[in-house]
């Protein structure tokens, strides 16, 4: 009896959960499917020489980084253009979205649901035929191949995030605070600027980041409206990759990847659940 009891007394502390074997295999496969390709990209950014049939690069180094970031390289120009366009897109989108979002959240609007829905239209149709015709239209009025043209295209697409999140952010601010400010004598604009706007700021910041990333990553619109006059990072990635220069393409891809993944890790800090629960209402 006593010998048979030994494994039982040991059991709680040392019991191996056999279910961890299938769990570990499945989780491992998912991790490989997600991080395998990303690891491959990282290897390419530091590979000096790598060809078939070698499993790993033959030489490592940062010479391609130097080439990408050299003042003569067109990567710096693309990076500057991309950041400039993304920043301007944020300014244009928010300038349009803050008044619209405030009106949609606070004022009684006729056809409110239809108006909210209208901003969703650019997400609901394949964009390529639209970009093709915008490019044609812009060509006639001289906007094709200009920064302003690319900004307008990106802003159209960014408006859905900007307006929807701004509406939710304003809806999450207690309307009574603004009424209180009005009742002690603040004008409508002052009450908005000093009470409502600061309280809605985190949500607006989240929408700004969304619009910024959307613009930074946009390829199709930049390809038709911007190229070849306005060089942007996604276009550089595409041409470098098409020319077989996987190192430059991978470094560019990494530059685009860092802000996107960084945002994914902090998005919940900006978009609190009180705002999220109001999106689309």
């Amino acid at each position, binding site marked *: 009896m006593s010998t048979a009891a030994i494994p039982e007394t040991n059991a709680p502390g040392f019991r191996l959960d056999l279910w*961890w074997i299938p*769990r570990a295999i499945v*989780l491992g496969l*998912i991790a490989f499917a*997600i*991080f*395998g*390709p*990303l690891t*491959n990209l990282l290897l390419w950014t530091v590979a000096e020489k*790598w*060809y078939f*049939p*070698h*499993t790993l690069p033959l030489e490592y180094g940062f010479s391609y980084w130097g080439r990408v970031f050299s003042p003569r390289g067109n990567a710096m120009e693309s990076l500057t253009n991309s950041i400039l366009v993304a920043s301007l897109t944020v300014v244009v989108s928010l300038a*349009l*979205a803050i*008044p*619209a979002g405030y*009106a*949609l959240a606070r*004022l*009684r*609007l*006729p056809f409110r649901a239809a*108006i909210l829905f*209208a*901003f969703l239209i650019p*997400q*609901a*149709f*394949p964009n*390529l*035929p*639209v970009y*093709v*015709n915008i490019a*044609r*239209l812009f060509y006639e009025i001289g906007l094709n191949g200009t920064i302003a043209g690319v900004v*307008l*295209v990106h*802003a*159209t697409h960014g*408006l859905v995030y900007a*307006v929807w999140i701004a509406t939710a952010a304003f809806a999450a601010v207690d309307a009574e605070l603004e009424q209180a400010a009005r009742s002690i004598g603040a004008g409508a604009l002052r009450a908005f600027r000093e009470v409502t706007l600061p309280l809605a700021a985190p949500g607006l910041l989240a929408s700004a980041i969304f619009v910024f*990333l959307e613009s*930074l*990553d946009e*390829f*199709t619109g930049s*390809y038709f409206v911007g190229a070849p006059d306005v060089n942007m990072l996604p276009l550089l*990635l*595409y041409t470098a*990759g098409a020319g077989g220069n996987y190192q430059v*393409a991978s470094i560019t*891809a990494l530059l685009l990847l860092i802000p*996107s*993944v960084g*945002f*994914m890790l902090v998005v919940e800090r900006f978009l609190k659940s009180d705002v999220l629960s109001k999106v689309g209402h």
Partner: protein
Amino acid sequence: MPKRLIGLVLVLPALAVILLLFIVPLAASVVGAFEEKNSYGLGNFTKAFELYRSDVMFTVMIVSLSTVLIGLFSIAIGGYLTLGENPRAVAILRWLYRWPMFIPFIVVGQVLRTFLAKNGLMNNMLVGAGIITPLQAASFLDWRGIVIAFVWKQTPFVTLLVAGAMASVDRGTIEAARNLGASRLRILLEILVPQVTTTLMVGLVLSFVTMMSVLSVPLMINAQSPTMITADIAFRINAYGDYGVANALGLISLAVTACVAWFYLRHSMKERA
């Protein structure tokens, strides 16, 4: 000024941008599809079908297959996140699955082009593990590469929606079924999935539309024939300046999307009736 008018004035600039920069060009693409040299007709469509019939079929099949796979994976992941009994495994999965969500399509194209190539990391690891010999290593950069890219990128987005909807399903029903001895797979298929169908369909329709208009992935992974309609549109314009056939192809992709949207709307009407 009456209050309603102020509201409209505040919304108007944003609406004008959507109208001028999206709806007008969309209308132009529809009209342009029927435009011929001096008249209107179906010539562009005849030409588009003559040249690209196989590409249209190819596109519909690739996007449909990807949509089905995305649906299956998102149900599986969402289901485990909701019903999984080991908190640590659930936490790991929750941390893992969303990584590709914010990665742009153009980066996905580049990342998978190097990963799936003949000497990519995937084949190298399979060879290293002794699963295949170096001679058996094949490039996945054809239709399979496009499907893998779409599923890789879009699954987290649909899963996020589906898992959110599953989390708000009444726990009491699940516990009751569990107490009566129902397996977790049965709970997933008979209780959870029917209750999140609407969310799942919305996510899948949005993914379908997105995939129909992605240009970078087909250009980077598989630009040879047969390829996707988007690559053909870009080629028609860059090589020939042929807006007629490009717009006809665009209208075909709009029509495919409209079919899917119609299918979804009919389904949701039936649900409500």
